[in-house]
């Protein structure tokens, strides 16, 4: 009946939701990245394998990410700043959510763009003021969406995508992090 096609296989996601309700073990995933220091504040991180559905899994290809800092940080600027990768993650996750929710609600998307801004007081990481935190003070995402839907329906898409976003949750809620030396 519906001709909506945002390229999301919603049925597969709904089927997975049903299947995993009775199999919480299979729902346990571990995402993995491997990082190597190059020089200065320049490092590369590769991602290929992860664990899920009870076994080792692999992306089709290995992806390499370069992290560095800009020249105004007295660095070589071989790649983006690590904290900017958080913006990449948030944008990618929320956009995927918008597309999935739109598909599920029968809303045809024509274009979805967003800008993600993280406001950051770098006195924290420099140790210049102990009252300033290291991370973002706040993050603002602005979506521009062209779709066969009212403004209110589009606002609802964006709200629902936040509600089901892994990266939004990881940024807005505390997460326990363990860092150790092997």
């Amino acid at each position, binding site marked *: 009946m519906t001709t909506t096609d945002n390229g999301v296989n919603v049925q597969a996601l709904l089927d997975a939701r049903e299947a995993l309700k009775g199999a919480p073990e299979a729902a346990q995933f571990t995402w993995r990245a491997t990082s190597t220091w190059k020089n200065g504040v320049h490092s590369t991180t590769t991602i290929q394998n992860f664990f899920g559905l009870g076994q080792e899994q692999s992306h089709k290809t290995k992806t390499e990410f370069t992290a560095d800092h800009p020249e105004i940080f007295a660095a070589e600027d071989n790649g983006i700043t690590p904290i900017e990768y958080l913006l990449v993650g948030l944008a990618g996750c929320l956009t995927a959510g918008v597309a999935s929710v739109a598909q599920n609600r029968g809303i045809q998307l024509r274009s979805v763009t967003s800008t993600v801004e993280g406001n950051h007081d770098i006195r924290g990481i420099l140790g210049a003021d102990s009252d300033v935190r290291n991370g973002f003070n*706040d993050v603002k995402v602005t979506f521009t969406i062209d779709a066969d839907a009212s403004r*209110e329906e589009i*606002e609802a898409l964006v*709200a629902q995508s936040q*509600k089901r976003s892994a990266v*939004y949750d990881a*940024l*807005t809620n*505390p997460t326990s992090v363990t860092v150790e030396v092997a």
Partner: protein
Amino acid sequence: MSQRVTTVVIGAGHAGLAASHFLSERSIDHIVLERGRIANTWRRERWDSLRLLTPNWLNRLPGHAYGGPDPDGYMTAGQVADFIGDYATVTAAPVRENTTVTSVRRTDGGYQVCTDEGDLDCVTVVIASGACNAPVVPECAAGVPDGITQLTPFEYRNPGSLPDGGVLVVGASATGVQLAAEVRRSGRPVVLSVGEHVRLPRTYRGRDVLWWMDATGVWAQSYDEIEDLARARRLPSPQLVGEPGTTIDLNALTGLGVEPVGRLAVIRDGAALFSGGLRNVCSLADLKMRRLLAGFDEWAGIGDGPAGFEPTRIPAAPRLRLDLRGGEIATIIWATGFRPDYRWLDVPVVDEKGRLRHDGGVVDSPGLYALGLPVLRRRRSTLLHGIEDDARFVARHLAERLTPRVVA
């Protein structure tokens, strides 16, 4: 030696008594067991100022309607208890008070119900013991520093019974917003931790919002037509208070000086850490409320869009961290929901989340039934007056089980 009876009804609240009404109508002999007094929860397990969220004209039980002088008012908890008590009297329900069920188990012919006042053997059982037998407190409460008073809605009575100092209210459903408002009015600083919630105005276009929900058929929706039934059944109670014309949404609370923060995520090193997602849970609630009101307008043929509601106002930078050791907070009130208690039920019909497995009140064990749970057969099952259709259905199903139909 066990006493024999056809049906045992567990709980003498509105649900158990409505079941009794329809069982009597069908001449099915039964006993209603009540651990305390009739309408016990309303008498003993709620705070002083609590009033019913439904207006009086809507409060009816099978064959028993509100007959008082204030149809648009809201009953106090005590008045609800009396209303239910009067119903037990007029229906001459066979209630056995001060009788606590200790176990229910299957037997060859039906069920054995053990109580602290002796055992009963029966063919069928109606579980009407309520949906809110115990407060739910999140696990992170274990991290609250010593010296902070912690209360659930079962223990809280009124602001006067709190120690001096600031209060953190966790949860913004009906309970949380009502307690936050009255504690704030007592002069104490109040921080309210807000997760997903249901925003509603008390009145819309001059009528009680529950009038609209009744008239437009929102509550008539059947459980098997609801897309996500599990979600509908666990939906938090709406931000309402039983005070004529009084809306108690977050804008009203911030107007009183209550400070909203995000959902409580964890308590770490003596500090409460809140989600940075407050803005989105408020957006979701605003969008859902507007959709509901737009549906009312559509039903009424009013085309100019939902009237008069501004978006939820949120502080520019809601606090993400609250030091519980610094003296700012003296009390935490856990308004984080309630759950039923089925520890006495020795029949494998409770799921891993502690909820009864049932299909519209027919429990997954022959001859076992449930009444008085949220969205049991319709959305209105959650409310007092929703019990009539549900209890009639269950009594009929139960009767058919006792007397198998003759196939012509």
